Protein backbone atom coordinates (compact mmCIF):
# COMPACT_ATOMS: atom_id res chain seq x y z
CA UNK A 1 0.00 0.00 0.00
CA UNK A 2 1.39 3.28 -1.00
CA UNK A 3 2.24 5.66 1.75
CA UNK A 4 -0.75 7.85 2.19
CA UNK A 5 -0.38 11.48 1.20
CA UNK A 6 0.35 13.73 4.10
CA UNK A 7 -0.10 17.40 4.61
CA UNK A 8 3.37 18.10 3.34
CA UNK A 9 3.14 15.77 0.35
CA UNK A 10 2.55 17.83 -2.81
CA UNK A 11 1.00 14.81 -4.44
CA UNK A 12 -1.51 14.43 -1.72
CA UNK A 13 -2.27 18.13 -1.54
CA UNK A 14 -2.89 18.37 -5.26
CA UNK A 15 -5.13 15.33 -5.30
CA UNK A 16 -7.17 16.51 -2.35
CA UNK A 17 -7.41 20.03 -3.63
CA UNK A 18 -8.68 18.81 -6.98
CA UNK A 19 -11.27 16.59 -5.42
CA UNK A 20 -12.39 19.28 -3.06
CA UNK A 21 -12.61 21.81 -5.86
CA UNK A 22 -14.74 19.48 -7.93
CA UNK A 23 -17.02 18.87 -5.04
CA UNK A 24 -17.38 22.59 -4.42
CA UNK A 25 -18.00 23.48 -8.05
CA UNK A 26 -20.53 20.80 -8.71
CA UNK A 27 -22.14 21.12 -5.33
CA UNK A 28 -21.64 17.47 -4.69
CA UNK A 29 -21.11 16.31 -1.17
CA UNK A 30 -18.60 13.57 -0.80
CA UNK A 31 -20.25 12.18 2.27
CA UNK A 32 -23.98 11.88 2.64
CA UNK A 33 -25.81 15.16 3.03
CA UNK A 34 -22.73 17.20 3.81
CA UNK A 35 -23.18 20.81 2.73
CA UNK A 36 -20.56 23.07 1.24
CA UNK A 37 -20.47 24.99 4.46
CA UNK A 38 -20.01 21.84 6.39
CA UNK A 39 -17.29 20.78 4.00
CA UNK A 40 -15.45 24.05 4.51
CA UNK A 41 -15.75 23.67 8.26
CA UNK A 42 -14.63 20.10 7.99
CA UNK A 43 -11.70 21.04 5.80
CA UNK A 44 -10.67 23.76 8.26
CA UNK A 45 -10.92 21.31 11.10
CA UNK A 46 -8.93 18.78 9.09
CA UNK A 47 -6.20 21.33 8.45
CA UNK A 48 -6.05 22.25 12.13
CA UNK A 49 -6.21 18.65 13.17
CA UNK A 50 -3.51 17.61 10.77
CA UNK A 51 -1.25 20.31 12.09
CA UNK A 52 -1.82 19.16 15.65
CA UNK A 53 -2.17 15.43 15.32
CA UNK A 54 0.01 13.06 17.29
CA UNK A 55 0.77 9.44 16.55
CA UNK A 56 -1.10 7.02 18.74
CA UNK A 57 0.57 4.25 20.72
CA UNK A 58 1.69 0.83 19.53
CA UNK A 59 -0.99 -0.98 17.69
CA UNK A 60 -2.74 2.20 16.87
CA UNK A 61 -2.46 4.25 13.79
CA UNK A 62 -1.97 7.83 12.92
CA UNK A 63 -5.03 9.90 12.35
CA UNK A 64 -4.59 9.71 8.62
CA UNK A 65 -3.25 6.21 8.48
CA UNK A 66 -6.57 4.49 7.94
CA UNK A 67 -8.27 7.04 5.76
CA UNK A 68 -8.50 6.48 2.06
CA UNK A 69 -6.49 9.16 0.29
CA UNK A 70 -9.48 10.15 -1.81
CA UNK A 71 -11.69 10.73 1.16
CA UNK A 72 -11.62 14.18 2.78
CA UNK A 73 -11.34 14.37 6.49
CA UNK A 74 -14.94 15.50 6.74
CA UNK A 75 -16.10 12.19 5.37
CA UNK A 76 -14.89 10.44 8.46
CA UNK A 77 -17.65 12.03 10.48
CA UNK A 78 -19.23 9.31 12.49
CA UNK A 79 -15.93 7.45 12.78
CA UNK A 80 -15.32 7.38 16.45
CA UNK A 81 -11.57 7.33 16.24
CA UNK A 82 -10.59 10.44 18.17
CA UNK A 83 -7.93 11.73 15.79
CA UNK A 84 -10.02 11.71 12.60
CA UNK A 85 -13.24 13.29 13.71
CA UNK A 86 -13.57 16.98 12.88
CA UNK A 87 -13.86 18.92 16.03
CA UNK A 88 -15.29 22.31 16.65
CA UNK A 89 -13.14 24.32 18.98
CA UNK A 90 -15.15 26.55 21.22
CA UNK A 91 -13.60 29.63 22.69
CA UNK A 92 -14.14 29.74 26.39
CA UNK A 93 -15.84 32.81 27.67
CA UNK A 94 -16.41 33.92 31.21
CA UNK A 95 -19.83 32.79 32.18
CA UNK A 96 -22.15 33.77 34.91
CA UNK A 97 -25.49 32.14 35.21
CA UNK A 98 -28.24 33.97 36.95
CA UNK A 99 -31.83 32.97 36.55
CA UNK A 100 -34.43 35.57 37.13
CA UNK A 101 -37.44 36.98 35.42
CA UNK A 102 -36.96 40.23 33.57
CA UNK A 103 -39.66 42.75 32.98
CA UNK A 104 -38.41 45.48 30.70
CA UNK A 105 -40.64 48.48 30.20
CA UNK A 106 -40.32 50.26 26.87
CA UNK A 107 -38.85 53.72 26.90
CA UNK A 108 -41.26 56.57 26.24
CA UNK A 109 -40.72 60.22 25.34
CA UNK A 110 -41.59 62.99 27.73
CA UNK A 111 -45.13 64.12 28.20
CA UNK A 112 -48.32 62.19 28.60
CA UNK A 113 -49.10 60.43 31.80
CA UNK A 114 -52.07 60.39 34.08
CA UNK A 115 -54.31 63.09 35.45
CA UNK A 116 -53.14 64.93 38.53
CA UNK A 117 -55.91 66.24 40.75
CA UNK A 118 -56.01 68.05 44.04
CA UNK A 119 -58.78 65.85 45.38
CA UNK A 120 -59.10 62.07 45.41
CA UNK A 121 -61.72 60.20 43.44
CA UNK A 122 -62.54 58.10 46.49
CA UNK A 123 -62.03 58.54 50.16
CA UNK A 124 -59.24 56.16 50.92
CA UNK A 125 -57.99 54.74 54.18
CA UNK A 126 -54.92 52.85 55.14
CA UNK A 127 -51.76 53.57 53.21
CA UNK A 128 -50.21 57.02 53.58
CA UNK A 129 -49.53 59.03 50.41
CA UNK A 130 -46.74 57.73 48.24
CA UNK A 131 -43.74 60.02 48.59
CA UNK A 132 -42.34 61.92 45.67
CA UNK A 133 -39.30 63.87 46.70
CA UNK A 134 -35.98 64.69 45.24
CA UNK A 135 -33.26 62.21 46.13
Amino acid at each position, binding site marked *: MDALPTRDDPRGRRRNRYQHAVAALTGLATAGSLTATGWIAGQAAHTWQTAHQTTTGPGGSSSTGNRHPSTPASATRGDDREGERPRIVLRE*RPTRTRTSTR*YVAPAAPVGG*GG*TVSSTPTHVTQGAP*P*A*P*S*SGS
Partner: protein
Amino acid sequence: MSRTHAGFVALGTDVYLAVRDNKELGHAIALARTVLQDVDAVASRFRADSDLTAVNAAPGRWVTVDPLLVGAVDAAVAAAEASGGMVSPLLGRPLVALGYDRDFALLAERRTWPEPVTAPPPLDAWREIRTDAAGRVRIPAGTALDLGSIGKAWAADLVAAAYEQELRSGAIVSVGGDLRIAHPDDRTWAVALSEGPGGRVTCVVHLDRGGLATSSTRVRRWGRPGARLHHVLDPRTGLPAPETWHSVSATGDTCAAANTATTAAVVLGADAPAWLDAHAVTARLVSADGAVRRTGGWPLEGRAA
Protein backbone atom coordinates in the same frame (compact mmCIF):
# COMPACT_ATOMS: atom_id res chain seq x y z
CA MET B 1 -56.92 46.46 59.21
CA SER B 2 -54.07 44.57 57.55
CA ARG B 3 -51.25 46.61 56.21
CA THR B 4 -51.29 47.67 52.58
CA HIS B 5 -47.97 49.49 52.39
CA ALA B 6 -44.30 48.89 53.17
CA GLY B 7 -40.92 50.53 52.89
CA PHE B 8 -37.28 49.50 52.71
CA VAL B 9 -33.95 50.78 51.44
CA ALA B 10 -32.53 49.81 48.06
CA LEU B 11 -30.32 51.48 45.43
CA GLY B 12 -29.13 53.79 48.19
CA THR B 13 -32.55 55.33 48.62
CA ASP B 14 -35.97 54.84 50.19
CA VAL B 15 -38.46 52.54 48.51
CA TYR B 16 -42.16 52.75 49.24
CA LEU B 17 -44.88 50.51 47.88
CA ALA B 18 -48.57 50.10 48.45
CA VAL B 19 -51.17 47.66 47.18
CA ARG B 20 -54.95 47.69 46.91
CA ASP B 21 -55.24 44.12 48.17
CA ASN B 22 -53.39 43.58 51.43
CA LYS B 23 -53.04 39.87 50.62
CA GLU B 24 -50.63 40.81 47.85
CA LEU B 25 -48.34 42.95 50.00
CA GLY B 26 -45.82 40.19 50.74
CA HIS B 27 -45.54 39.23 47.11
CA ALA B 28 -45.18 42.88 46.11
CA ILE B 29 -42.33 43.39 48.57
CA ALA B 30 -40.52 40.29 47.34
CA LEU B 31 -40.88 41.32 43.71
CA ALA B 32 -39.59 44.82 44.39
CA ARG B 33 -36.60 43.53 46.35
CA THR B 34 -35.67 41.09 43.59
CA VAL B 35 -35.94 43.60 40.78
CA LEU B 36 -34.00 46.28 42.65
CA GLN B 37 -31.27 43.87 43.67
CA ASP B 38 -30.82 42.95 40.02
CA VAL B 39 -30.70 46.60 39.00
CA ASP B 40 -28.10 47.36 41.67
CA ALA B 41 -25.96 44.42 40.64
CA VAL B 42 -25.73 45.50 37.02
CA ALA B 43 -26.07 49.28 37.06
CA SER B 44 -24.42 50.62 40.19
CA ARG B 45 -21.53 53.00 39.58
CA PHE B 46 -20.27 52.29 43.09
CA ARG B 47 -19.93 48.52 42.88
CA ALA B 48 -16.65 47.14 41.61
CA ASP B 49 -18.42 44.02 40.33
CA SER B 50 -21.26 45.70 38.45
CA ASP B 51 -21.65 45.47 34.70
CA LEU B 52 -21.70 49.25 34.47
CA THR B 53 -18.31 49.42 36.17
CA ALA B 54 -16.98 46.97 33.59
CA VAL B 55 -18.28 49.16 30.78
CA ASN B 56 -16.68 52.25 32.33
CA ALA B 57 -13.38 50.42 32.59
CA ALA B 58 -13.28 49.89 28.82
CA PRO B 59 -14.62 52.97 27.03
CA GLY B 60 -14.46 52.68 23.27
CA ARG B 61 -14.68 48.88 23.38
CA TRP B 62 -17.55 46.43 23.32
CA VAL B 63 -18.18 44.93 26.74
CA THR B 64 -20.33 41.89 27.38
CA VAL B 65 -22.94 42.71 29.99
CA ASP B 66 -26.18 41.52 31.50
CA PRO B 67 -29.05 42.31 29.09
CA LEU B 68 -30.66 44.19 31.97
CA LEU B 69 -27.95 46.82 31.70
CA VAL B 70 -28.62 47.06 27.97
CA GLY B 71 -32.22 47.95 28.82
CA ALA B 72 -31.05 50.60 31.28
CA VAL B 73 -28.64 52.13 28.76
CA ASP B 74 -31.32 52.12 26.07
CA ALA B 75 -33.66 53.96 28.44
CA ALA B 76 -30.93 56.48 29.21
CA VAL B 77 -30.24 57.05 25.52
CA ALA B 78 -33.98 57.54 24.93
CA ALA B 79 -33.98 60.15 27.70
CA ALA B 80 -31.08 61.95 26.03
CA GLU B 81 -32.91 61.86 22.70
CA ALA B 82 -36.15 63.18 24.21
CA SER B 83 -34.37 66.00 26.08
CA GLY B 84 -32.02 67.14 23.34
CA GLY B 85 -29.08 65.91 25.37
CA MET B 86 -30.03 67.79 28.56
CA VAL B 87 -30.32 64.44 30.35
CA SER B 88 -27.05 62.73 29.55
CA PRO B 89 -25.93 59.23 30.57
CA LEU B 90 -22.25 60.13 30.04
CA LEU B 91 -21.59 62.36 33.05
CA GLY B 92 -19.75 59.71 35.04
CA ARG B 93 -16.33 61.36 34.77
CA PRO B 94 -17.49 64.89 35.60
CA LEU B 95 -19.28 63.51 38.66
CA VAL B 96 -16.16 61.68 39.77
CA ALA B 97 -14.06 64.78 39.15
CA LEU B 98 -16.40 66.75 41.41
CA GLY B 99 -15.91 64.14 44.10
CA TYR B 100 -19.05 62.04 43.70
CA ASP B 101 -17.18 58.80 43.23
CA ARG B 102 -18.72 56.76 46.03
CA ASP B 103 -22.07 56.11 47.59
CA PHE B 104 -23.55 59.43 48.65
CA ALA B 105 -23.76 58.33 52.27
CA LEU B 106 -19.96 58.11 52.32
CA LEU B 107 -19.35 61.46 50.67
CA ALA B 108 -19.40 63.40 53.93
CA GLU B 109 -16.31 61.49 55.10
CA ARG B 110 -14.26 62.54 52.10
CA ARG B 111 -11.07 64.44 52.96
CA THR B 112 -9.24 64.62 49.63
CA TRP B 113 -10.62 65.80 46.33
CA PRO B 114 -9.68 65.18 42.69
CA GLU B 115 -9.02 68.00 40.30
CA PRO B 116 -12.16 69.02 38.38
CA VAL B 117 -12.18 68.14 34.69
CA THR B 118 -11.87 71.14 32.43
CA ALA B 119 -14.44 70.07 29.84
CA PRO B 120 -17.36 67.62 29.78
CA PRO B 121 -17.90 65.17 26.91
CA PRO B 122 -19.34 66.64 23.70
CA LEU B 123 -23.05 67.30 24.11
CA ASP B 124 -23.93 64.72 21.45
CA ALA B 125 -21.51 62.07 22.69
CA TRP B 126 -24.47 59.95 23.83
CA ARG B 127 -25.29 59.37 20.13
CA GLU B 128 -22.13 57.25 19.92
CA ILE B 129 -23.37 54.78 22.52
CA ARG B 130 -24.02 51.39 20.99
CA THR B 131 -25.89 48.45 22.48
CA ASP B 132 -26.55 44.89 21.48
CA ALA B 133 -29.73 43.38 22.89
CA ALA B 134 -27.95 40.08 23.34
CA GLY B 135 -25.81 41.70 26.02
CA ARG B 136 -23.11 44.15 24.89
CA VAL B 137 -22.54 47.84 25.38
CA ARG B 138 -19.98 50.22 23.92
CA ILE B 139 -19.55 53.80 25.11
CA PRO B 140 -17.40 56.43 23.42
CA ALA B 141 -13.75 56.57 24.34
CA GLY B 142 -12.98 58.95 27.16
CA THR B 143 -16.43 58.75 28.72
CA ALA B 144 -18.11 56.97 31.60
CA LEU B 145 -21.71 56.03 32.22
CA ASP B 146 -23.73 57.35 35.10
CA LEU B 147 -27.37 56.28 35.18
CA GLY B 148 -28.22 58.13 38.37
CA SER B 149 -30.55 60.58 36.66
CA ILE B 150 -32.74 57.94 35.00
CA GLY B 151 -31.86 54.80 36.98
CA LYS B 152 -34.32 55.06 39.86
CA ALA B 153 -37.21 56.03 37.64
CA TRP B 154 -36.44 53.20 35.24
CA ALA B 155 -36.22 50.82 38.20
CA ALA B 156 -39.66 51.97 39.34
CA ASP B 157 -40.98 51.17 35.87
CA LEU B 158 -39.42 47.72 36.09
CA VAL B 159 -41.06 47.01 39.43
CA ALA B 160 -44.40 48.24 38.12
CA ALA B 161 -44.04 46.01 35.07
CA ALA B 162 -43.45 43.07 37.41
CA TYR B 163 -46.56 44.06 39.32
CA GLU B 164 -48.56 44.15 36.09
CA GLN B 165 -47.51 40.56 35.48
CA GLU B 166 -47.64 39.13 38.96
CA LEU B 167 -50.28 41.02 40.95
CA ARG B 168 -53.99 41.01 40.37
CA SER B 169 -54.90 44.43 41.71
CA GLY B 170 -53.55 47.96 41.81
CA ALA B 171 -50.21 48.94 43.27
CA ILE B 172 -47.86 51.89 43.41
CA VAL B 173 -44.10 51.91 43.92
CA SER B 174 -41.81 54.85 44.70
CA VAL B 175 -38.06 54.48 44.30
CA GLY B 176 -36.31 57.49 45.72
CA GLY B 177 -39.37 59.61 45.06
CA ASP B 178 -39.87 58.48 41.46
CA LEU B 179 -43.10 56.54 41.34
CA ARG B 180 -45.20 54.45 38.99
CA ILE B 181 -48.69 53.00 39.21
CA ALA B 182 -49.46 49.42 38.20
CA HIS B 183 -52.93 48.11 37.34
CA PRO B 184 -54.62 51.54 37.20
CA ASP B 185 -58.25 51.39 38.27
CA ASP B 186 -61.01 53.87 38.98
CA ARG B 187 -59.31 55.11 42.14
CA THR B 188 -56.48 57.57 42.44
CA TRP B 189 -53.34 57.25 44.52
CA ALA B 190 -52.35 60.02 46.91
CA VAL B 191 -48.87 61.44 46.34
CA ALA B 192 -47.07 63.68 48.83
CA LEU B 193 -44.47 66.05 47.37
CA SER B 194 -41.51 67.30 49.34
CA GLU B 195 -38.08 68.62 48.54
CA GLY B 196 -36.31 65.69 50.14
CA PRO B 197 -36.87 62.33 51.81
CA GLY B 198 -38.58 62.83 55.14
CA GLY B 199 -38.84 66.52 54.47
CA ARG B 200 -41.85 68.72 55.02
CA VAL B 201 -44.69 67.82 52.70
CA THR B 202 -45.41 70.83 50.55
CA CYS B 203 -48.23 69.48 48.41
CA VAL B 204 -50.52 66.46 48.14
CA VAL B 205 -51.97 65.48 44.78
CA HIS B 206 -53.82 62.46 43.44
CA LEU B 207 -52.69 60.51 40.42
CA ASP B 208 -54.70 57.98 38.45
CA ARG B 209 -52.10 56.28 36.25
CA GLY B 210 -48.60 56.44 34.80
CA GLY B 211 -45.55 57.83 36.53
CA LEU B 212 -44.58 60.88 38.53
CA ALA B 213 -41.06 62.01 39.34
CA THR B 214 -39.44 64.80 41.33
CA SER B 215 -35.96 66.17 40.80
CA SER B 216 -34.36 68.40 43.37
CA THR B 217 -31.14 70.33 43.84
CA ARG B 218 -31.63 70.34 47.61
CA VAL B 219 -30.95 66.73 48.54
CA ARG B 220 -27.74 65.26 47.13
CA ARG B 221 -25.48 68.13 48.01
CA TRP B 222 -21.92 68.12 49.17
CA GLY B 223 -19.13 70.57 49.74
CA ARG B 224 -15.54 70.68 48.63
CA PRO B 225 -13.04 73.47 49.20
CA GLY B 226 -14.44 76.56 47.59
CA ALA B 227 -17.66 75.10 46.29
CA ARG B 228 -21.07 73.80 47.22
CA LEU B 229 -22.26 71.21 44.77
CA HIS B 230 -25.34 69.19 43.89
CA HIS B 231 -25.74 66.13 41.71
CA VAL B 232 -27.79 67.43 38.77
CA LEU B 233 -25.08 68.37 36.28
CA ASP B 234 -25.53 70.48 33.20
CA PRO B 235 -24.12 68.40 30.30
CA ARG B 236 -23.09 71.62 28.56
CA THR B 237 -20.67 72.56 31.34
CA GLY B 238 -20.07 69.41 33.35
CA LEU B 239 -20.90 71.43 36.46
CA PRO B 240 -23.98 71.51 38.72
CA ALA B 241 -26.88 73.22 36.98
CA PRO B 242 -27.76 76.69 38.26
CA GLU B 243 -30.29 76.40 41.05
CA THR B 244 -33.12 78.22 39.35
CA TRP B 245 -35.49 75.55 40.63
CA HIS B 246 -35.25 73.85 43.99
CA SER B 247 -37.51 71.06 42.79
CA VAL B 248 -39.50 70.04 39.74
CA SER B 249 -42.24 67.38 39.73
CA ALA B 250 -43.81 66.04 36.54
CA THR B 251 -45.96 63.22 35.22
CA GLY B 252 -45.37 60.90 32.29
CA ASP B 253 -46.64 57.74 30.68
CA THR B 254 -43.76 56.06 32.44
CA CYS B 255 -41.73 57.10 35.43
CA ALA B 256 -38.67 57.34 33.18
CA ALA B 257 -40.51 59.81 30.95
CA ALA B 258 -41.51 61.86 33.99
CA ASN B 259 -37.95 61.85 35.31
CA THR B 260 -36.57 62.89 31.93
CA ALA B 261 -38.82 65.95 32.06
CA THR B 262 -37.91 66.90 35.64
CA THR B 263 -34.17 66.50 35.15
CA ALA B 264 -34.25 68.43 31.89
CA ALA B 265 -36.21 71.19 33.60
CA VAL B 266 -33.62 71.56 36.36
CA VAL B 267 -30.84 71.76 33.78
CA LEU B 268 -32.72 74.24 31.55
CA GLY B 269 -33.36 76.61 34.41
CA ALA B 270 -35.33 79.66 33.29
CA ASP B 271 -36.04 78.01 29.93
CA ALA B 272 -37.77 75.07 31.59
CA PRO B 273 -41.42 76.27 31.62
CA ALA B 274 -41.40 76.95 27.87
CA TRP B 275 -39.75 73.60 27.19
CA LEU B 276 -42.25 71.75 29.37
CA ASP B 277 -45.19 73.51 27.68
CA ALA B 278 -43.79 72.70 24.25
CA HIS B 279 -43.63 69.01 25.20
CA ALA B 280 -47.09 69.00 26.84
CA VAL B 281 -45.68 68.03 30.22
CA THR B 282 -47.78 68.43 33.36
CA ALA B 283 -45.34 69.76 35.93
CA ARG B 284 -44.89 71.76 39.10
CA LEU B 285 -41.73 73.86 39.53
CA VAL B 286 -40.63 75.43 42.80
CA SER B 287 -38.13 78.26 42.43
CA ALA B 288 -35.32 79.17 44.79
CA ASP B 289 -37.49 81.84 46.40
CA GLY B 290 -40.36 79.40 46.96
CA ALA B 291 -42.61 80.55 44.12
CA VAL B 292 -44.60 77.82 42.38
CA ARG B 293 -45.02 77.61 38.60
CA ARG B 294 -47.32 75.08 36.92
CA THR B 295 -47.45 73.68 33.40
CA GLY B 296 -49.93 71.45 31.60
CA GLY B 297 -52.71 70.09 33.76
CA TRP B 298 -51.10 70.53 37.18
CA PRO B 299 -53.89 71.58 39.55
CA LEU B 300 -53.86 74.39 42.03
CA GLU B 301 -52.32 73.42 45.30
CA GLY B 302 -54.07 70.88 47.46
CA ARG B 303 -53.63 71.21 51.17
CA ALA B 304 -50.57 69.51 52.57
CA ALA B 305 -51.31 66.39 54.55
